[in-house]
């Protein structure tokens, strides 16, 4: 019995970790697939999501950083986790819109390397802004009291996993499904997909692509924001989390296949499960194994598991 429980615990932990990767990867992937834009600042959006979620959900005591020095040692709205989950996506959506307009647009016709460089620079700026104002020490972002224990459902009470992790998996599933339906079955999605295939032709037909594009970027950003809110309470919160999660998120995209939502989901699940299984068995090799897996997949199947063709370089 206890072995079964261990296995289920590991798998659920893996799914939950995968869910965070999926939320980030879906956003990155649709941005890369449609706008052909490489966003190294996606981790920064996750960072903004985490801090915004923290400040909306709780009231925290700052122990370092400029804000504390200026006398704002108590900060935050303390509205609770549900309002945070609702407000943050809109905040980060707006940040995403601004970013599309002021960064992506001017860099559309510049080479890939310039896009990577400028977004990498932006990621540093965001990280350092948070570091300067909120300090570099980790902030307390605990899981809500109502989601700390295992859920009170007959079978699941025996599994030592907080209900928060189930919520993470559930929220991810719902959001990804919504985005999938939006892209596959609406007029908006049709335009976006057509624009991915042949932007010139779409514009010749009299359809303006700039508006769907900016919305796509906003949606991708909002997903990263949600990932920040749900992922924040699971790890220590400090200014470097954005850059730390960027690398696995990017790998999830490329092993899944650029532009494919299903690929991002598959990649995320694969990544999360591999990580959880390795942590439970050969924990020293966990991270190495993850990158080795990614490298092997990329070398054997360069377009990613579910990718059709590679992005023109």
């Amino acid at each position, binding site marked *: 019995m206890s072995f079964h429980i261990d296995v289920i615990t590991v798998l659920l932990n893996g799914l939950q970790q995968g869910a965070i990767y999926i939320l980030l990867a879906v956003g990155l992937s649709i941005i890369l697939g449609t706008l052909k834009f490489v966003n190294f600042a996606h981790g920064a959006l996750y960072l903004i999501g985490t801090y915004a979620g923290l400040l909306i959900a709780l009231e925290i005591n700052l122990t370092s950083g*400029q804000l504390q020095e200026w006398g704002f040692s108590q900060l935050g709205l303390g509205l609770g986790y549900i309002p945070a989950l609702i407000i943050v996506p809109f905040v980060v959506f707006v940040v995403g819109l601004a970013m599309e307009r002021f960064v992506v647009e001017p860099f559309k016709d510049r080479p890939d390397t310039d896009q990577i460089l400028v977004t990498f620079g932006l990621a*540093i700026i965001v990280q*350092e802004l948070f570091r*300067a104002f909120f300090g570099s020490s980790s902030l307390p972002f605990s899981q809500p009291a109502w989601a700390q224990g295992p859920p009170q459902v007959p079978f699941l009470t025996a599994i030592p996993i907080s209900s928060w992790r189930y919520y993470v998996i559930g929220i991810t599933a719902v959001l990804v499904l919504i985005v999938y339906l939006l892209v596959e079955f609406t007029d908006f999605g049709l335009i976006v997909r057509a624009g991915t295939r042949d932007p010139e032709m779409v514009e010749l037909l009299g359809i303006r692509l700039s508006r769907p594009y900016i919305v796509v970027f906003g949606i991708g950003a909002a997903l990263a924001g949600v990932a920040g809110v749900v992922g924040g309470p699971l790890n220590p919160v400090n200014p470097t989390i954005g850059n730390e999660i960027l690398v696995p998120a990017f790998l999830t995209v490329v092993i899944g296949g650029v532009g494919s939502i299903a690929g991002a989901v598959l990649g995320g699940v694969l990544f999360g499960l591999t990580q959880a299984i390795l942590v439970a068995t050969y924990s020293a090799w966990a*991270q190495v194994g993850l990158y*080795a897996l*990614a490298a092997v997949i990329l070398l054997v199947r360069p377009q990613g598991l579910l990718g059709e063709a590679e992005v023109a370089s």
Partner: protein
Amino acid sequence: MSDESASAGETDTDASALGDAIGIWAPRGNEVRIVAGSAIILALFPFIFSRMPVVSDLLQGYQSLATLILIWGIFALGFDLLLGYTGLLSFGHAAFWGGAAYATGVFSQQVSGSPILMVAAGTLFAVLLAWFLGFLSLRRGGIYFAILTLAFAQMMFYMSSSPLAFITGGENGFTGVETGELFGMFALESELPSVLGLLLGTWLYAFVAIITVLCIAFAYRILQSPYGMVFRAIRENEQRAEFVGLNVWRYRLMSFILSGLFAGIAGSLFTIHGTYVPLSSLYWTESGEVVIMTVLGGTGSLFGPMIGAGVYLYVENIVSGGHPVDFIAPFWHLILGLVFVVTIWMFPRGIWGFVRDVRDMITGGDE
């Protein structure tokens, strides 16, 4: 550093006279002037930076930072061979820098503490690693290359953080570096005799500076050669280079290995300089730092990246300590980020490009 066309004729005659005597080792183009110029500047640099009466008070520089600037300068110079000349953006150069740093440390502990052998060992390790990783990551272009190099470098980071911790010291870094004396005679920390001591300071600086000059000469040689011309041709138009019959893949791999070589030299010197290898030397932000230095200083130029390294390290070490103004100290990294973004946005040719533009404006252009 010099006008490329102004006195080319004169040096060419020098070169050909010399060339008969020393064959393929003969200097080409402006090599003599470039090398002599850099040697003079590097000889004066630590004095001006850390000991000259008024200037050093203004700059607040110190000897060990001068050495560090040269070391990162070599790293950035090599990185620019790849980014600026061949047009490939790697986010995994920390693997070569940190890998060489660890290799050097382990070599010093297990085999020999001779600084020259240490640099040779670290560099050899980096070159072999670059060959292997280049072979794997160069199958893909553009963003895939950036992400693959990033993934491999992160793999190295996690390797040394736990599975190989018994060699590398894991989170604590490698602490067992045992640097011996240069040629078995001169301790690297000791001062040079008489006027050299005033100018250069320590043996360590002299050692690093000589290697830096050799690196500059080597890089200049490569870039002036037909081989280096192919790198630029690939950057400008890969397809066309392919059509004239060049094996693009092979040249790219060589460019990657060469830049790994420079990163290896720099990484080895970093170990000798710090007598310690931090785990963070393999982390991907380290790759990011060399990217920033190179772009800030100006890609596609010989001296730009070195200037970029100097500016970056100056801000990181001096401005962060509250000099010249106290209140910007906590924002030093933010300022670097902002300057970096502005550079990419508006001055893609970096500080060096800006300097050249100003010079062309004053002299009315010399082309």
